[in-house]
């Protein structure tokens, strides 16, 4: 793996951070309030929001772009490399101007595939030079989820499971309108689907904006809870639970073997990969190499960007996706150790 650096023209010394907010209809409201908070905070920021709906709480201090999604394919009929053209145009519009925004919030419509959004932000060449993905925030309406939980189907479908499985922050709204028992079961179910993210329940503990932004969550090695913390999952018929596979090993990995492992992962699982992230210690590299990706896209860079004086020989890659062969992924990862 040779870390690659995206080019940043001198006009944009720091890429603009992008937070992706997804969930039910409440996601747009949360994005509007988050944007208002950032625009009127102690250090006011110029904030842009991109959504498919108008702002539920218009604010002249926030640049809100309401735009219809345009999902394109690089190859006819191939879902592993879909891209949101509307996002590329909107982000360029917010950033390439005399007073560019300093932060962007992208609201993902409940009927849209969040992976298309994260893949676009990470892989589009224009967006690689202009922005960086800060984190994925997913909202869950406790009342709606608890109602579904009562009939043993807490999640609204595949798209909700998908966005929950890759979320860096999960904000459970209206928790004070459900019973403690229902909330407990809901939180257990959410934790089963997602092993990355902090689960916030504002009705119980107020949530500071600092918990939702400046996460740098798609860089470096992720913090992943152990699988034995998970509850048995209840799914509606037909729904498939995304898996989270944690591959780790102590020691220096062979670069060729590691390249082969990543190539096989992308080739064999491509369309089924919702998130790929980690940091690996590779022979010949002075620092660990961080990687991240979605579907068929992956990229890497040196960990020195995050941890200047730190060098660990611990390698960890977390893969979230469907129908993964966990044992094979783990065993071939360990087999990549240099001898």
């Amino acid at each position, binding site marked *: 793996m040779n870390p690659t650096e995206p080019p940043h023209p001198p006009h944009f010394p720091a890429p603009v951070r992008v937070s992706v907010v997804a969930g039910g209809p409440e996601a747009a409201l949360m994005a509007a309030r988050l944007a208002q908070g950032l625009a009127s905070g102690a250090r006011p920021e110029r904030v842009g929001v991109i959504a498919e709906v108008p702002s539920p709480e218009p604010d002249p201090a926030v640049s809100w*772009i309401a735009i219809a999604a345009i999902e394109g394919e*690089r190859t006819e009929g191939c879902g592993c490399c879909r891209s949101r*053209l509307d996002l590329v145009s909107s982000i360029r519009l917010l950033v390439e101007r005399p007073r560019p925004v300093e932060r962007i919030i992208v609201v993902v419509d409940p009927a849209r595939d969040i992976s298309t959004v994260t893949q676009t932000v990470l892989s589009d*060449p224009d967006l690689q*030079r202009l922005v960086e993905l800060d984190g994925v925030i997913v909202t869950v309406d406790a009342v709606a989820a608890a109602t579904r939980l009562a009939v043993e189907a807490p999640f609204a479908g595949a798209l909700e499971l998908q966005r929950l499985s890759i979320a860096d922050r999960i904000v459970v709204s209206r928790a004070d309108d459900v019973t403690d028992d229902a909330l407990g079961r809901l939180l257990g179910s959410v934790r089963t689907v997602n092993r990355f993210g902090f689960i916030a329940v504002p009705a119980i503990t107020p949530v500071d904006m600092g918990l939702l932004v400046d996460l740098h969550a798609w860089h470096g090695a992720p913090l992943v809870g152990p699988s034995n913390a998970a509850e048995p999952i209840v799914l509606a018929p037909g729904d498939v639970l995304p898996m989270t596979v944690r591959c780790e090993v102590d020691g220096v990995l062979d670069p060729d073997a590691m390249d082969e492992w990543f190539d096989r992962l992308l080739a064999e699982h491509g369309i089924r990969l919702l998130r790929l992230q980690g940091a690996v210690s590779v022979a010949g590299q002075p620092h660990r190499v961080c990687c991240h990706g979605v579907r068929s896209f992956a990229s890497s860079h040196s960990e020195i960007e995050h941890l200047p004086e730190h060098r660990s020989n611990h390698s960890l890659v977390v893969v979230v996706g469907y129908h993964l062969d966990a044992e094979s992924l783990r065993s071939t990862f360990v087999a990549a150790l240099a001898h």
Partner: protein
Amino acid sequence: MIRCEVAVVHRERLPDAARHLGWVGSTAFAGCDDGSVVIVGADRASRRVLHRLSGPVTAFAVGHDRLAVGAIDGSAAVIGRAGTEVGFDLGSTVWGAGMIGDRCAFVVGTDVVIARGAAHEAIPLGLGSLTSVTQVTGSLAMVGGVRGVAWLDVGLAARDGWIELPTIVSLGADPRHRFVAAGDLGGSIHIVRSGSQEATELSGYPDRVELLGWLASGGALCATADDELTIWAATGDGLDQPEPTRLVGHDHPITSLSTSPTSDLVATGDAAGHICIWSPLDVDSPVARMRGDGVVLSLAWSGTGRELLISTSLGEVLRYVVTPPTA
């Protein structure tokens, strides 16, 4: 070594970035992110905002005596030299516009909206979301979308066949009316002979083929993808050589391209503010280099091919006089 003389004759800073530039006769126009459509180069006292859309300008097309403009929020207008002729609310983002004969075509969602005077009519094309439109000849246009391209007879307001392709992001019509080039999201160009229902694929670009332009003679097609600029020589049979000529001059993604309407000069601009003018007589290096103060958002040659307009992300607009190359 061939060189082209360039001299800046006008420089101004607009309140917001101008993502679209164009000429109607000798008058230069800019479509800006604040929704305004302005005359470039008018002195400050007499500078006129010809029209103000209610959102950033996302579509801009120039005709002989009029402009068609559309915005991200669906507002649109047809503007003459004297000002707005007619305004529309098309309800959704206008992604492209074309002046085709005496009509204007706006790309909106899955439809092309054809406007003539104050009347307008939506034509669904069955290509999914649409991205672009270009005039081919007379009232014949080609429209690109996420499922391919379609021929559209704007005079009859009717689709006239389509070709299934990957998502199309750019279109360029040969000035000699023989071919249309369509750039796709996956890094290929599809060459369609006028009126044909088949396309020839030219592949191998590192990313989406964002910008296309034909030389005025029709002798070559210019295409960009990321920081790569290539020229495919064209004959009456098509563009069938195995490799294009690669022009090396940009180290950053190319963000704008414009071909001169009168000579075989090509102007390109990039994300770092570099502008190059190229001549097929010397493909080893640009025949002129200029510099803007931000990302080059748009380039537009005047109808005479003697002036070049440049806009950048910092709101700067530059007007250059260009003297054709001399050996």
